[in-house]
């Protein structure tokens, strides 16, 4: 791998790309969120927004959705080895594409796919990458990328002045998606050259978690349980409330460590970072490691027996009470409302 | 913090024990107490951390036969949970007779496994009719050729049923009075050696307390510690050496209670300010802290004396155990008082500490026996002076 010690000629790189992550043939919501945000950035830069869509033959069908959210162009890479995400073939294909068409900005959703891919690509292309951004803006023609650091205790704004593309992974659900059909809808097909050495990692199996009914990071509403719910079987009442509200079930690290629920539900520094419309924390004390994972939620309701629990510091509405009493009541009242 | 002159290695033991206590014991202490569950997981962690052999010489796989290091470990563990603390300390109590009176062969056979924590030990002296009055032992060991047949029941033995290595005192000759008992090493699994039910206790509930039941238990004469007839000497010398350990356990429990009381008093606001700003509370805390420090100073003075090779420390060892245990009971009770209503609730840790503290005034020789012992020593000393 050759080092390219000199920054590239920035002027030759134009356009904002977003990575249209797909899983099992479905474009993920974060791609639409990125497209919507990219429109604003593109207006400031007077450039176009394109989406990069990779998958096996037939993924082209998904291009339509990308145009609906404002992509002027879709770069389409159809190849059998791109059906499921793997680091090497995706990095190979998209790097070749980027070096050919030279976007000035490349936004990728900060999912397990996106963070894995972007980190590898940035070193291959020799460009700057900012992780898990919560804010983007253009100033003096450069992308300013804002993100939390030090466990959410500080915010940092970062730029990549001399290297292209300016890459950033963006936290899902930070930006809102909005349908803005673009005037253009061009598809550019790209044939990547994927080598044998790109195929060393084999996918053996996918293990589904039956307890996961709604993707936590996509959920608009999350009901979370902590040790304060007292007993693992009380996750049933959390699930019921989640069901009634059409939300997902989250959990504190303590309950996951205790084996009450699987790690896919864990919210917090060593779990998932979520920012739903509504987060209801039941029996969760609110240690900083948990808060970091959910404090950017729009509305937070905290239910806890201890009036001094730190969770109340970030709650929009605080209820001091026994969740074993309050949660079923909430479920009951909402059911009544809905009739 | 007062400088007790601990070596760097001893401080390392203290810090490591504290780390394990906070990270591994604290999250589960309430559950262990509630379920009366033996802390095997934690004992495994202590073993892997090389903490089980603090009182055993390096020759047998231990850390260097330091009573001081052992007390530091016991104190830090007990500071978080008295039940785990006594489980840790009682294994030393069970193994100490082997260290003090065993032949090299016996030490080679039993001490390495205790040092590595692979096995635990227990000490069996007490019986239903022989508590403070140890001379009332009724468990017998009848000579039969090269063997002894043991019959009888030991009561309230800490680590009973969980330990593999037991040192027990049995009567070999009722007519010889003080020379009528003998100390034996008996292994779990020996035919005729069984256990009674696990006792339900006020405190130290995770610690296993069981009867040892001997019914025609045949033990080879090579299992005798010292010589036939030395049983009471083995017991007394063992208890002398391990009394500072119980003192350390008591100091630890008291310190843990003080920590909680201060933490609470700083945040509990009544009448517009934290209660720690009230003189009444400060005086209570001051008395508690002073008692703890004095007990600690005495415990480690004795521990260091033993490590330095002192021959006669019976009186001071009794004093350390006496003072520290009375302190633990007093301090934990005061801690509950300071936490008020919350102190009485099981959700808060101090009521358990108060329940745990009580036993320290009772076992390893009741505090009444300790006072007897100190009194006797004073009389003996004053007679020598004349």
């Amino acid at each position, binding site marked *: 791998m050759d080092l390219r010690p000199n920054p590239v000629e920035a002027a030759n790189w134009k356009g904002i790309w977003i990575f249209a992550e797909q899983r099992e043939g479905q474009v993920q919501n974060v791609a639409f969120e990125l497209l919507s945000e990219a429109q604003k950035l593109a207006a400031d830069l007077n450039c176009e927004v394109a989406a990069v869509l990779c998958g096996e033959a037939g993924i082209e069908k998904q291009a339509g959705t990308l145009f609906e959210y404002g992509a002027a162009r879709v770069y389409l890479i159809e190849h059998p080895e791109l059906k499921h995400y793997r680091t090497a073939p995706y990095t190979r294909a998209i790097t070749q594409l980027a070096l050919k068409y030279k976007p000035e900005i490349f936004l990728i959703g900060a999912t397990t796919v996106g963070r*894995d891919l972007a980190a590898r690509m940035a070193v291959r292309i020799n460009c700057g990458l900012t992780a898990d951004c919560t804010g983007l803006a253009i100033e003096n023609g450069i992308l300013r990328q804002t993100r939390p650091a030090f466990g959410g205790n500080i915010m940092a704004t970062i730029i990549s002045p001399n290297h292209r593309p300016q890459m950033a992974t963006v936290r899902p659900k930070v930006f809102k998606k909005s349908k803005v059909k673009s005037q253009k809808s061009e598809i550019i097909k790209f044939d990547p050259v994927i080598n044998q050495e790109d195929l*060393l990692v084999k996918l053996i199996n996918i293990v589904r978690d039956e307890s996961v009914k709604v993707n936590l990071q996509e959920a608009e509403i999350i009901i979370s349980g902590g040790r304060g719910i007292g007993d693992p079987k009380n996750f049933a009442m959390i699930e019921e409330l989640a069901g009634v509200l059409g939300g997902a079930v989250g959990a504190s690290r303590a309950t996951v460590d205790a084996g009450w629920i699987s790690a896919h539900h864990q919210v917090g520094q060593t779990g998932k970072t979520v920012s739903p419309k509504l987060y209801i924390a039941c029996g969760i004390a609110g240690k900083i490691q948990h808060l970091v994972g959910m404090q950017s939620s729009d509305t937070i309701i905290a239910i806890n027996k201890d009036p001094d629990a730190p969770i109340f510091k970030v709650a929009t509405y605080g209820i001091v009470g026994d969740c074993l*009493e309050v949660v079923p009541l909430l479920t009951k009242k909402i059911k009544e409302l809905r009739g | 913090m007062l400088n007790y002159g601990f070596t760097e290695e001893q401080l390392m033991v203290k810090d490591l024990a504290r780390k394990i206590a906070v990270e591994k014991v604290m999250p589960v202490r309430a559950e262990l107490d509630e379920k009366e569950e033996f802390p095997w997981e934690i004992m495994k962690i202590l073993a892997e951390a090389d903490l089980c052999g603090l009182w055993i010489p390096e020759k047998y796989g231990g850390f260097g036969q330091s009573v001081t290091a052992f007390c530091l470990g016991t104190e830090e563990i007990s500071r978080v949970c008295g039940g785990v603390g006594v489980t840790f300390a009682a294994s030393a109590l069970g193994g100490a007779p082997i260290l003090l009176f065993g032949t090299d062969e016996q030490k080679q056979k039993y001490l390495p496994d205790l040092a590595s924590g692979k096995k635990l030990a227990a000490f069996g002296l007490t019986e239903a009719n022989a508590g403070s009055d140890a001379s009332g032992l009724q468990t017998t060991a009848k000579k039969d050729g090269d063997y002894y047949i043991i019959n009888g029941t030991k009561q309230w033995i800490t680590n009973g049923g969980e330990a593999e290595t037991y040192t027990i005192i049995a009567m070999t000759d009722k007519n010889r009075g003080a020379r009528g008992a003998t100390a034996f090493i008996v292994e779990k699994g020996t035919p005729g050696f069984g256990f009674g039910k696990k006792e339900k206790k006020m405190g130290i509930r995770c610690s296993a307390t069981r009867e040892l039941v001997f019914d025609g238990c045949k033990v080879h004469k090579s299992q005798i510690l010292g010589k036939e007839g030395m049983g009471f000497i083995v017991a007394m010398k063992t208890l002398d050496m391990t009394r500072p350990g119980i003192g350390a356990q008591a100091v630890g429990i008291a310190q843990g209670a003080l920590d909680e009381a201060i933490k609470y008093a700083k945040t509990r606001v009544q009448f517009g300010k934290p209660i720690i700003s009230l003189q009444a509370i400060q005086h209570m805390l001051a008395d508690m802290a002073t008692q703890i420090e004095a007990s600690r100073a005495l415990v480690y003075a004795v521990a260091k004396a033993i490590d330095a090779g002192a021959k006669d420390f019976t009186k001071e060892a009794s004093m350390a155990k006496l003072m520290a245990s009375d302190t633990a009971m007093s301090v934990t009770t005061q801690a509950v008082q300071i936490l008020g209503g919350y102190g009485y609730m099981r959700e808060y840790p101090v009521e358990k500490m108060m329940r745990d503290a009580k036993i320290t005034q009772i076992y390893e020789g009741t505090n009444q026996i300790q006072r007897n012992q100190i009194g006797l020593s004073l009389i003996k000393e004053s007679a020598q002076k004349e």
Partner: protein
Amino acid sequence: MDIVVCIKQVPDTTEVRINPETNTLIREGVPAIVNPIDENAVEEALRLRDKHGGKVTVITMGPPQATEALKQCIAMGADEVYLISDRAFAGSDTWATSYTLATAIKKLGKFDLILCGKQAIDGDTAQVGPGIAEWLNIPQVTFAIKVEVDSSKVKVERLLEEVNEIVEIPLPCVLTVVKQINEPRVPSLKGLMRAKKAEIKTLSAAEIEADQAVTGLKGSPTRVVKIFAPPAKGGGEMLSGTAEEMVVAVIDKLRERKTI
């Protein structure tokens, strides 16, 4: 197996605060610790070594005080440790850091497996592990929650958002691990004593033959231009009344806000 683990010494971020007036970090009195997930990586390496034999080498790129972090790894049982330290590395972003670490690894010799924690609790980027893999031109697997080695192959279970993925990857490779992979062992007394006596070898930029045009601040494509305190969360409302009253009140408020 020859395993190398890359760790980072970080401030305990539960204690870090930002001075809202100067917008700088308040580091005084904040203890420096081994990045918690890196402890999981070291633990996993030790378990693999204990099972398959071999050696565990731990390295870190950091200032001189990072030797403390390496000593903790010795106390856990690491066989060899190296501090990669040089003024030339100061101000490195993840690109330059991964270059430096990869260069050090190349210098130290052939390794079968490289383990990293998923991300550091200060930077929170999760970018260095994959960066190292790219520099070394070997495959990577991220978010490992279970690792099984079988001669020259590794079977890895990855913790994804909703499912777990089982993949197979040849050695040598880079794995980044998640916290849920294991429970790091407590250091032993013998380990602590070994750590105390240990003299940590430091490797400079010249000694690892790093190209100083691409290390440190100079070599970093990204630049931090602003640090500020996050918007203060607060002004929440504590509800009162009976449980039923509070439930009715909160539902009303949610409907007002059009949340539900």
